[in-house]
């Protein structure tokens, strides 16, 4: 039982933090990058590839370095800390994760190799309008004609969908079950739009669009898809943790430096106590994020699903609390787009959707309370 990074992990964190801070340590730089398509910095994407970050999760055969969830998580955390807009979570963790889990050796070597090299961007398209965090493929249907497959339907929102070179799409199979398909980005009808935190998403329309099945065609991949969604949630929670750490640090700094009524704000006990409560939320969330990340490394599909629910609930609640209090304790300045604090809160609101939202997870957990006597942290 150990909650600390080892030396290699610490070195990786320092390296990623250095790269991320160099690019986005000044919030204005981030602001300019997200102001135009594709909403992130292609050069930074290449630098992340160079550092080996984009291939972290993938096996060496697939062009990666086979790092574990702790390493992937700390990258998410560091990127979250500076609101780095590069689509690591969407492209590497989620879409890349689906390819790694379901693709044939050739598909993995091709797609993941190019992804790790920073040559392409992938996007996962699994949500249709009205969907609420299901991974069952509804909204897009797959049709087969001999060896050829086509997809029809609408996916929206698809994070980074317009920029993606290839889309990894869930779809209902003709004989039941859900499959995974690769669609060329250019083959789909895509409308790019801004998300509230400055990131980009797209509506993706598929209309008998040619598609290539990932792995053996025609198999029901729902369990795989669900697990990769769960892992993505846990890594989204890591990203949120980085954001929340930055929120607490900014708020603390502000209370120490900002003067009103002739004194610094930390003279007002009502404010410092609220900062203390933010810290409590942060630390409790931190513990659950670390735990869930370790469960990814050692748990069964069911363990990972449960960990995703638990971290989803804890971090969604903490994100709401910390995001709102960070704005309130800063006052008006945090309402402006030029200042990082409010945008971080916007990003937390977006990450909640990645996580699945508190009530969704609470409902799932509530269904299980009579299945166990206690919830045990250690197995």
């Amino acid at each position, binding site marked *: 039982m150990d909650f600390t990074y080892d030396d290699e992990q610490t070195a990786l964190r320092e390296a990623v933090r250095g790269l991320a801070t160099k690019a986005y340590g000044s919030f204005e730089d981030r602001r300019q990058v997200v102001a135009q398509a594709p909403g992130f910095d292609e050069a930074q994407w290449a630098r992340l590839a160079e550092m080996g970050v984009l291939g972290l999760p993938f096996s060496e055969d697939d062009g990666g370095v086979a790092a574990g969830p702790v390493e992937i998580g700390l990258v998410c955390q560091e990127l979250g800390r500076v609101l780095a807009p590069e689509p690591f979570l969407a492209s590497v963790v989620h879409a890349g994760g689906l390819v790694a889990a379901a693709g044939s050796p050739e598909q993995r070597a091709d797609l993941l190799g190019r992804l790790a090299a920073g040559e392409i961007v992938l996007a996962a398209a699994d949500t249709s309008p009205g969907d609420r965090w299901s991974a069952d493929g509804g909204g897009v249907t797959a049709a087969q004609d001999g060896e050829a497959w086509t997809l029809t339907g609408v996916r929206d929102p698809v994070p980074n969908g317009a920029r993606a070179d290839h889309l990894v799409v869930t779809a209902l199979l003709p004989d039941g079950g859900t499959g995974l398909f690769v669609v060329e980005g250019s083959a789909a009808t895509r409308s790019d739009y801004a998300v509230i935190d400055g990131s980009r998403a797209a509506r993706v329309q598929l209309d008998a669009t040619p598609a290539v099945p990932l792995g053996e065609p025609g198999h029901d991949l729902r369990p795989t898809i669900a697990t990769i969604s769960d892992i993505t949630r846990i890594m989204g929670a890591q990203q949120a943790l980085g954001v929340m750490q930055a929120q607490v640090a900014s708020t603390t700094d502000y209370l120490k430096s900002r003067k009103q*009524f002739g004194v610094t704000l930390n003279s007002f006990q009502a404010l410092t106590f609220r900062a203390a409560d933010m810290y409590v939320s942060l630390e409790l969330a931190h513990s659950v994020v670390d735990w869930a990340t370790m469960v990814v490394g050692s748990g069964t599909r069911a363990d990972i699903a449960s960990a995703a629910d638990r971290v989803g609930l804890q971090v969604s609640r903490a994100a709401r609390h910390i995001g709102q209090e960070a704005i309130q304790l800063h006052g008006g300045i945090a309402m402006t787009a030029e200042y990082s604090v409010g945008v971080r809160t916007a990003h937390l609101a977006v990450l909640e959707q990645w996580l699945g939202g508190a009530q969704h997870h609470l409902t799932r957990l509530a269904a299980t309370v009579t299945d166990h006597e206690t919830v045990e942290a250690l197995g």
Partner: protein
Amino acid sequence: MQLELSAEDAAFREEMRTYFTTEFPQDIRDTVLEGRELSQEQIVRSQQALNAAGLAVPHWPEEWGGRGWTDLQRHLWHEEMQAAGVPTPLAFNASMIGPVIAQFGTEEQKARFLPATANLDIWWSQGFSEPDAGSDLASLRTTAVRDGDDWIVNGQKTWTTLGQFGDWIFTLVRTDPEVKKQAGISMLLIDMTSPGVEVRPIELIDGSHEVNEVWFDDVRVPGDLMVGELNSGWTIAKFLLGNERVGVAPVGATKRALATLKRNAGDLLDDPLTRARVAELENELLALELTALRVVAHSAGGEPHPASSVLKLKGTELQQAVSQLALDLAGPGSLAYGAEDDSEVPGWARRSAPTYLNLRKASIYGGSNEIQRQIIARTILGL
């Protein structure tokens, strides 16, 4: 104690409801009811329609368009307006500078400004807040220095809501730097087309442009545009900010927002946790509305009722809570913030994230909730 409205008040409410729902411009109401943004033209047209009907400035002196209503009647007017999706009259004009000029202005100022203010022929902006002041309004630094009969104004205001539409701005300026900070402040009316006035937009986190910085660089202001006595600005500002007992909490608008959300939610309301959240919010809104009624029923004379702070505090919390429920119900659809209007994601869901973020301001602007708690603790509880 009596729950029913008197026959007179019931008739009054019916009259309001009829006007708002049958005579007032429908396109403006639709815009509000669907949660879209009003254009400048709509805001002006709305207030002019109200003014023509005698409903823009009912609380002003009767000589200047007031109606001599009771506070309860004003409350009913205000709630019916919100329930019908009619924009309330521009606060800067109707609730802020209008009453101030009526109370403190010279006869010349009244004649020059009040009719145009009621009719929104002049769009007023508010120039109180400054970058380093925040809740500590009295630490303002914008200066006005005598030059013959005129004042020369230098400095910067910020958080000037809708300042991009402003014709005139009412400002607090420091006219005596030597005395205790509240004592050296005066109020000046400034024509925003004057040389040296510059309005710079501030983009907010929801992508909106609703507040501005306003810069004053050697702006010359004629002496007859000072309101009230020299160095009496603090008194006037307190009058202006504490003037309001009616409509302090956005009860009607929040009720409407929750009703709309319920309609939009559809099947999502089958979830018992969601239903419980709605029920809890409805109950708290009822408590808030009843408290607002108690305040208007009890208030007497021109003194602000201290429970106004309760209304502001709880009112903004509930307004924010409804926006959070909308965000939660929108789910992944809330990401589609910038999607085109033909998106399959419904408009309410697409607007849920910016609305949630925008309304964080509600507990900051206009006297933060910390200031309200302080007022309650000090003024009401004597702590």
